[in-house]
């Protein structure tokens, strides 16, 4: 790797979800002084599929299935926010049982997503065994998802006005057993991530996002909560059944007593959220009322009601990565929405990368970027890198730099 004194060197940094061969193009342009980064320019990667445009040509129920495919890991939160937006625009009241079921599905997805992330983070530090461990736990969560909805990932469980499948009483023992399994393994994970010396050395003090920056740059999700900002849609807004549940906004202060806003705090944040998700699912199962699961079971009737609706609505949901917001405008003349705007959480978490990466070493880039849990296909980004001196650092080289640093620290 050649380096000269001043250096506007451009790195194409592919950042995961996961494995060495996986690339999601997010391009960073760094200006370096030695090994340290002094200036960062983020340019985003290509995944533009024209989804919002396609959505304007379909009726709202078809859009639900389109919305699911915006992103693989957050496949529940996009239809959820969309359904909330349409229900707000058309003033549809959702039955209570459906609200509780929606919470259970959402929290289950949160567990799957955070487990996936934990594996990624471990991999970026160099602990592949932990990747396989966490994904093994995730497989159990996916099995539960399949049991409840019929599929591992594309669940298609959301419907406008309610939910498509019920959780009957004979399914409850299985859910309770799986929750116990997660609780036991949570302790194991906590020990692996939070008590390990090397993880602490790599992550403490790296990628700091101050509370001030997090507020000004409108960061969302665990990234911002780990910096001490109490922003959580489930706590602030009453939607689904979150208003009835005993919810509070978690920050790393609850575990360690201080908030630093570094990568270590983000790891703590996500582990605590998994614990909270397990508790919320158990609370929901205890408190769930009986009743209908959907406001209008006959789809043609629902569609004709939506066709006549003239209104606009905003739907917000707390996805595993942060706040998802959908805006829908129905014009009452055609079945298709007049406007549909999707904003995925990673969108707001991109600008915070800049203060996080300033002053960091190159070897820390993978773990810092992965700590915000970026989901590039959600964000649909474009990248064009053009400038000065370019040379490419492949994903392997960057990943190897990160692993080498870990080995050095372990000595």
């Amino acid at each position: 790797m050649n380096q000269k004194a001043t250096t506007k060197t451009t790195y194409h940094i592919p950042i995961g979800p996961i494995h060495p061969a996986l690339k999601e193009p997010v391009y960073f342009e760094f200006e370096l002084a030695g090994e340290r980064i002094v200036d960062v320019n983020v340019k985003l990667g290509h995944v533009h599929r024209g989804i919002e445009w396609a959505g304007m040509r379909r009726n709202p129920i078809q859009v639900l299935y389109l919305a699911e495919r915006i992103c693989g890991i957050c496949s529940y939160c996009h239809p959820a926010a969309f359904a909330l937006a349409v229900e707000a625009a058309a003033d549809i009241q959702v039955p209570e049982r459906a609200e509780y079921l929606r919470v259970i599905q959402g929290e289950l997805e949160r567990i799957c997503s955070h487990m996936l992330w934990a594996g990624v983070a471990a991999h970026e530090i160099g602990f592949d065994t932990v990747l396989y461990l966490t994904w093994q736990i995730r497989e159990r969560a996916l099995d539960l998802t399949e049991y409840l909805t019929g599929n591992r990932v594309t669940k298609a469980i959301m419907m406008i006005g309610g939910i498509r499948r019920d959780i009957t009483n004979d399914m409850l023992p299985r859910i309770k057993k799986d929750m116990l399994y997660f609780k036991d393994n949570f302790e194991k994970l906590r020990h692996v991530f939070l008590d390990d010396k090397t993880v602490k050395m790599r992550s403490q003090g790296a990628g700091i996002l101050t509370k001030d920056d997090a507020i000004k740059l409108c960061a969302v999700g665990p990234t911002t909560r780990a910096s001490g900002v109490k922003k959580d849609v489930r706590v602030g807004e009453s939607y689904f059944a979150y208003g009835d549940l005993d919810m509070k906004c978690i920050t790393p202060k609850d575990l360690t007593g201080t908030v630093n806003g570094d990568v270590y705090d983000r790891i703590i944040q996500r582990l605590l959220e998994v614990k909270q998700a397990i508790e919320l699912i158990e609370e929901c199962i205890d408190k769930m009322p009986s009743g209908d699961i959907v406001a209008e079971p006959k789809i043609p009737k629902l569609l004709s009601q939506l066709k006549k609706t003239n209104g606009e609505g905003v739907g917000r949901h707390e996805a595993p990565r942060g706040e998802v917001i959908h805006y829908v405008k129905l014009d009452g003349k055609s079945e298709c929405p007049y406007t549909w705007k999707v904003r995925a959480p990673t969108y707001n978490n991109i600008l915070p990368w800049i203060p996080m990466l300033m002053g960091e070493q190159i070897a820390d880039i993978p773990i810092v970027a992965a700590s915000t849990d970026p989901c590039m296909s959600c964000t649909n980004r474009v990248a064009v890198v053009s400038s000065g001196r370019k040379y490419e650092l492949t994903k392997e080289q960057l990943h190897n730099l990160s692993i080498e640093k870990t080995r050095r620290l372990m000595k």
Partner: protein
Amino acid sequence: MGIPLQLWFMQWCDIEIIAALCPRYDVERFGIRLVGSPRHADVLLVTGPVTRQMVDKVKRIYEQMPDPKAVICVGNCGNTGDVFYESYNLVGPINNILPVDVHVIGCPPRPEAIINAVAKAWVKLETLEAKK
């Protein structure tokens, strides 16, 4: 046998491919490994829809692979476009760009289906070798 993974950013299929590597499905017990570079690979897995910007890159990666090689198209998006069929940013089905040997349909296909597809591609490569 190595397989490089080319991802056109469709999260779904990628996750199921990685799940295939994990201890539950464990594709490595068949002698299949995921490699990072096309030069070490025998089979190319293409997932997701092909956007305009990616056409040249896909072709270049295919050319870098040594013979004999096979291409597997994973997921509905590459095959027919799936829900993105009318998008203004997408370029034809993958078999217009590369010669595809095995199509795996599903949105996303299960890890078992992916392993099945890789096994079929492997058999095809072996028959090609045997013919020579």
